[in-house]
């Protein structure tokens, strides 16, 4: 097996990966991005509504501390306050950098970046009414962001391994991460990519659910690799169901629709969010809106012949607003719902959207684990940023527009920290042949297997289990049934067989490897969801309906090998502001 060496290797070519790569490439260190798709095909491209940040354009008085307050509240108090403080305070600088790179933000009459209202936003620590804090490029902000980052990586001559797939982490005898095994999809060649710093920016795993806004490629590859390598996963029970996925297709309709004045109606045409969140109404936290929608449906007020969805009304905004502010939504709605939002409401249903959990990290992107006495320890050589990481700025529920901010701020922070570390000198012992072989063993086994089940039906079965047993509302008994089904599925997934043995662009091989990553992610989700016997943020238990701060004002931590769940403290000590104390969360 050939070895290729770099100072820094970033796995994933989405927003987080390309922001980290850009930082490292600018520093002159030998940097490579491994991406299983050409970078602009990454899922960041699908982000619509915007990037939330207190740049004080819509409101000159806006303050990053207000954004911090909203984010802490949104997280249902298990977001780490040092990390949220860092994100919200550094955010404006990171946004202005993007603008200087050329990102085509929409503009105000003053020539500044246009900001729209999004859910969970307030002025003056919840006292001053709705804020408008989400910076937007029409409703194509993710596309504009991703292309801008790719363009600037071209400018800085970052090395891209496009359509290469990272299989597993290589660890040396000290347990430090010293690179990954990767396949060139076009030729089938397997290579050891050696690196002093390995950054996971592999994105989410929404494909563990049958109905998701996520791209086909969101298969939790980073989670799978991490869990197999003994890296813990944090807060995996916290999955965001976006209120407005297009009914039937699952494609996303931005919260920006409601930010621009759209609202949800039930079959009676009632604006039902007024009942659930009298102040914020349709702009309450996403978890709150998603649950309200499901309750409307369960109580018989859903729309359609099966009463299984509600509708998003936009027609009152007028064609001009829709075509200028929400052109992409008009297009998606016409294509996937066969509905013209200028004339009639869009059928929508809560749809799996975002993984709040992930690899625990500090604000520098360093991956963390805990030692025997429960203290955080850094895993040498491994970093994570973006959706695969759990810094944690989102806690139990992410606010709209905070994912793009998370990925640029922490992609940038990871790059900055690695640059400094490289300058100070990183000494990691080389991996032995045995270490490299160990990392290649999963692929080896897949290639050698003569028979087994096919990937598509197994993937379908996994997605159905997750959809049915671990959805918006959860109960212990039903989750335990789901866990038993997953137990049964594990061996079958481990023994999945290739439908195709060629070397040239073998997507069947990639799908098998992805399925195993999906499975690891799903199992972590299932086991931790059953363990957290309270309701908090996106995790809503019908058998434990209250938030339990006495026992669960903490992160969950899951170990792949032992399948054990433990607890990890939440950070309540921001450096420049007072701690935001947990309060009852209402909108």
């Amino acid at each position, binding site marked *: 097996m050939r070895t290729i060496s770099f100072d820094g290797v970033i796995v994933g070519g989405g927003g987080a990966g390309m922001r980290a790569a850009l930082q490292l490439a600018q520093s002159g260190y030998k940097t490579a991005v491994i991406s299983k798709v050409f970078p602009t095909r990454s899922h960041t491209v699908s982000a619509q509504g915007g990037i939330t940040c207190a740049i004080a354009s819509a409101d000159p008085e806006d303050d990053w501390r207000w954004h911090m307050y909203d984010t802490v509240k949104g997280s249902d108090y298990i977001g780490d306050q040092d990390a949220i403080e860092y994100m919200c305070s550094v955010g404006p600088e990171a946004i202005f950098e993007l603008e*200087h790179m050329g990102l085509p933000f929409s503009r105000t009459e003053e020539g500044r*970046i246009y900001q729209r209202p999004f859910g969970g936003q307030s002025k003056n620590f919840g006292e001053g009414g709705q804020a408008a804090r989400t910076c937007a490029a029409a409703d194509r902000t993710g596309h504009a962001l991703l292309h801008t980052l790719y363009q600037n990586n071209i400018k800085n001559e970052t090395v891209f391994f496009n359509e290469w797939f990272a299989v597993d982490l290589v660890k040396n005898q000290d347990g430090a991460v010293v690179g990954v095994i990767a396949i060139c999809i076009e030729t089938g060649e397997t290579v050891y990519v050696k690196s002093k710093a390995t950054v996971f920016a592999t994105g989410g795993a929404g494909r563990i659910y049958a109905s998701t806004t996520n791209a086909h490629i969101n298969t939790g590859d980073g989670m799978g690799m991490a869990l197999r390598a003994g890296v813990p996963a944090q807060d995996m029970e916290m999955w965001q169901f976006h209120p407005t996925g297009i009914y039937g297709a699952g494609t996303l309709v931005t919260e920006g629709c409601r930010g621009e004045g759209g609202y949800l109606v039930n079959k009676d045409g009632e604006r039902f969010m007024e009942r659930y969140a009298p102040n914020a109404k349709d702009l309450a936290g996403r978890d709150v809106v998603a649950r309200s929608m499901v309750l409307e449906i369960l109580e018989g007020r859903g729309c359609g012949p099966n009463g299984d969805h509600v509708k998003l009304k936009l027609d009152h905004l007028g064609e001009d607003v829709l075509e200028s502010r929400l052109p992409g939504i008009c297009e998606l709605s016409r294509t996937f719902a066969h509905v013209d939002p200028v004339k009639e409401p869009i059928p929508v249903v809560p749809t799996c959207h975002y993984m709040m959990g992930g690899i625990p990290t500090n604000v520098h992107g360093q991956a963390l684990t805990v030692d025997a006495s429960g203290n955080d320890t850094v895993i040498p050589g491994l970093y994570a940023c973006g959706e695969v990481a759990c810094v944690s700025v989102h806690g139990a529920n992410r606010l709209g527009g905070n994912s793009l901010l998370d990925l640029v701020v922490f992609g940038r922070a990871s790059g900055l920290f690695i640059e400094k570390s490289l300058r100070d000198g990183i000494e990691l012992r080389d991996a032995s042949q045995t270490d490299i072989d160990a990392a290649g063993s999963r692929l080896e086994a897949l290639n050698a297997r003569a028979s087994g089940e096919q990937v598509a039906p197994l993937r379908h079965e996994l997605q159905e289990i997750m959809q049915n047993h671990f959805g918006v509302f959860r109960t212990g008994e039903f989750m335990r049934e789901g866990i038993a089904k997953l137990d049964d599925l594990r061996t079958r997934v481990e023994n999945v067989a290739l439908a195709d043995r060629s070397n040239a662009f073998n997507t069947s091989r990639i799908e098998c490897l992805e399925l195993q990553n999906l499975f690891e992610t799903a199992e972590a989700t299932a086991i931790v969801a059953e363990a957290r016997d309270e309701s908090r943020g996106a995790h809503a238990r019908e058998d434990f309906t209250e938030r339990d701060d006495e026992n669960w004002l903490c992160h969950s931590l899951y170990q792949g090998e032992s399948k054990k769940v433990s607890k990890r403290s939440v950070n309540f000590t921001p450096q420049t502001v007072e701690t935001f104390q947990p309060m009852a969360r209402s909108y």
Partner: protein
Amino acid sequence: MLEVSLYRYNPETDEAPYMQDFSVDTSGRDLMVLDVLELIKADYDGSVTYRRSCREGVCGSDGLNMNGKNGLACVTPLSETVKGEKLVIRPLPGLPVIRDLVVDMSLFYAQYEKVQPYLQNPSPAPAIERLQSPEERAQLDGLYECILCACCSTSCPSFWWNPDRFIGPAGLLQAYRFLADSRDTATEERLGKLDDPFSVFRCHGIQNCVNVCPKGLNPTKAIGHIRTMLLNRAT
């Protein structure tokens, strides 16, 4: 049943490409072409090879030639493309085939990179954003939305003839996106790099690019603007 004819080619086993027929059970649904490919891969032949990612027309992975017309498989419903009996799916024309429906896009990307598709402005950036009026920003509409799917360039006869020297509609659309940006100051240098008989002037206004663009963009119009800028510069 839907009759589908797929372009197949595996460089390891096939001496030449061939068309393979499938009868696919769609249960009468008006699926997207990508859904049909997913069905074939899952239920009929796991070796069928194509690219896909977002499945909603924004990532640009699944540009294909469907019944003779380039488009994105994920946003092309059967009702739009199958007028007769059959759905014929081929790779995008004019680029080397790696396998089945997957083409080698290196030349396409190289032409994109040639136009230096990034903002250039050496003056020190302000502490906040560079200001731009809504009118100035509106100049970028219809340009920045390109998803690099290559449907346009691979439907362009001029690009088929000179893929190494004619930038092609996708690259030129991005060239103009930066020429049109009030924040970019490299206009003269950009035009200088385009001022040769091939880069821009091989466009003959055939407009295949406009007809196939899944995002409704108009590269021919952008090329017209660049042409005017080049001609004004020459006089």
